[in-house]
């Protein structure tokens, strides 16, 4: 009888401990998610339409911490743009600093990246495939730069080749008016070349200018800041990523945060209001 009582008490105790110790959902982050959705669906336009103007020599700014990044987004950084930039640089005989993506993202993202890179390394060793294949786009840019052509000449060249279907352009480099964003291509090449030559990068300017909107929302005693950007003519997702993060290759962060409005990275519309997550 006594033994039964002891067993019952132990069972009760363990059950109670399990109930008390079970993980509670993170209410704080859930609240953030909600706020992001609510605020970002506000589609009122800012009125100002920005010109796509940021100079090659002026690498652009990282905004102050604001919105928590949405959960489950794809790892930041994309190989497509980086690979293109590095491909052009090596075509020009400049050794890029490193093909590794920036040291950002969570541990899980870093683990996936390491795993992918070492798997690729192993596969390529066996299949004898070169690490990177020069694309027609890279070849065209390298030829034009070698010949000392002007930016506007290269712009016309790339747009003609793209409209003829001769080159495949990363979708983040298609502007709201359907053109190839040559400006971002050339500025990311210059930025990488500067880095490769060991020169310090220019100081980051504060985010601002046409189309940028910073909004502070008071909620439950704390103020949260959001960045918004209104798409102007000539803007590509890559250009907006370069404007806010200083790196066109991070366009995916913006794309993922605006999936409800963007069906694909090349489907920007002039006047569209995008939420810019903090990374």
């Amino acid at each position, binding site marked *: 009888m006594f033994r039964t009582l002891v067993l019952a008490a132990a069972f009760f105790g363990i059950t109670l401990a399990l109930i008390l110790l079970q993980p509670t959902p993170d209410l704080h982050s859930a609240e953030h998610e909600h706020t992001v959705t609510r605020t970002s669906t506000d589609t009122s336009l800012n009125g100002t339409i920005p010109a796509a103007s940021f100079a090659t020599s002026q690498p652009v700014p990282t905004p102050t911490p604001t919105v928590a990044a949405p959960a489950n987004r*794809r*790892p930041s*950084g*994309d*190989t497509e743009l980086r690979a293109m930039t590095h491909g052009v640089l090596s075509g020009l005989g400049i050794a890029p600093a490193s093909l590794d993506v920036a040291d950002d993202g969570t541990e899980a993202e870093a683990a*996936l*990246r390491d*795993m*992918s*890179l*070492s*798997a*690729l390394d*192993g*596969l*390529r060793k*066996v*299949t004898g*495939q070169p690490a990177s294949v020069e694309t027609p786009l890279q070849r065209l840019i390298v030829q034009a730069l070698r010949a000392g052509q002007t930016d506007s000449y290269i712009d016309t060249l790339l747009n003609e080749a793209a409209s003829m279907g001769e080159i*495949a352009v990363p979708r983040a480099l298609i502007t709201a008016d359907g053109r190839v964003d040559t400006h971002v291509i050339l500025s990311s090449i210059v930025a990488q070349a500067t880095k490769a030559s060991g020169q310090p990068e220019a100081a980051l300017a504060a985010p601002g200018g046409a189309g940028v909107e910073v909004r502070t929302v008071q909620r439950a005693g704390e103020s949260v800041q959001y960045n918004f950007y209104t798409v102007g003519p000539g803007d590509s997702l890559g250009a907006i990523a370069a404007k806010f993060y200083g790196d066109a290759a991070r366009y*995916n962060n913006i794309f993922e945060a605006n999936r409800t409005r963007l069906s694909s990275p090349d489907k920007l519309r002039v006047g569209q209001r995008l939420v810019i997550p903090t990374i």
Partner: protein
Amino acid sequence: MLRRFGLSFVFTSIATLPVTAQDVRITQDMLTRSITLNGAEIVIDRIQDGEHQLSGDFARTSRACPPFFITPMTAAPGVTTIGELEVMDFLETQVAAGTALLLDSRLPEFFGKGSIPGSLNLPFATLDSANPYRDDILIALGATASGGGWDFSSAKTLALFGNGAWCDQSSRAIQHLLGAGYPAEKLLYYRGGVQSWLQLGLTHHIPTGG
């Protein structure tokens, strides 16, 4: 009586002798199998000690379920399930000819502890469409991008395996590949995985990090 007992003892001792001296063969007419891959020879044979038993992780019978369910015999319609002899044939013919790859779908940590000779590590998670490197991996497997989709006509035939019948990592890798459009007839599934391989005392290869 005693003599009779002694005689039978001697007889049984002699009778068991050839058994312990007999080779542990792969098949009746094959003791070892030697395969040349990329200029390097790999030799697959079996542990000759008739008393040998597995110890450690691969001797375990029971694992909490979920996540370690028993997997079905077929990973997906059209994907052929194979056993150890077929894995060796696959290595000797298709992998040696450069038209196929034997892939360990487990995480690098497990691959590093040892795997089937001639296999490459391609963790299942890297084939998830959410991985930004997934397309690079498909290209490394021989796929070519064509008009917004993939052309797998010159892609390699792949045989995938995981820890064993209780491990769904290779089935998940197969699902990811099929999701990307990889043709089912170019995929093979070695369901027994590393545990079945070791259970038969087959040669285990520890990657040298090169």
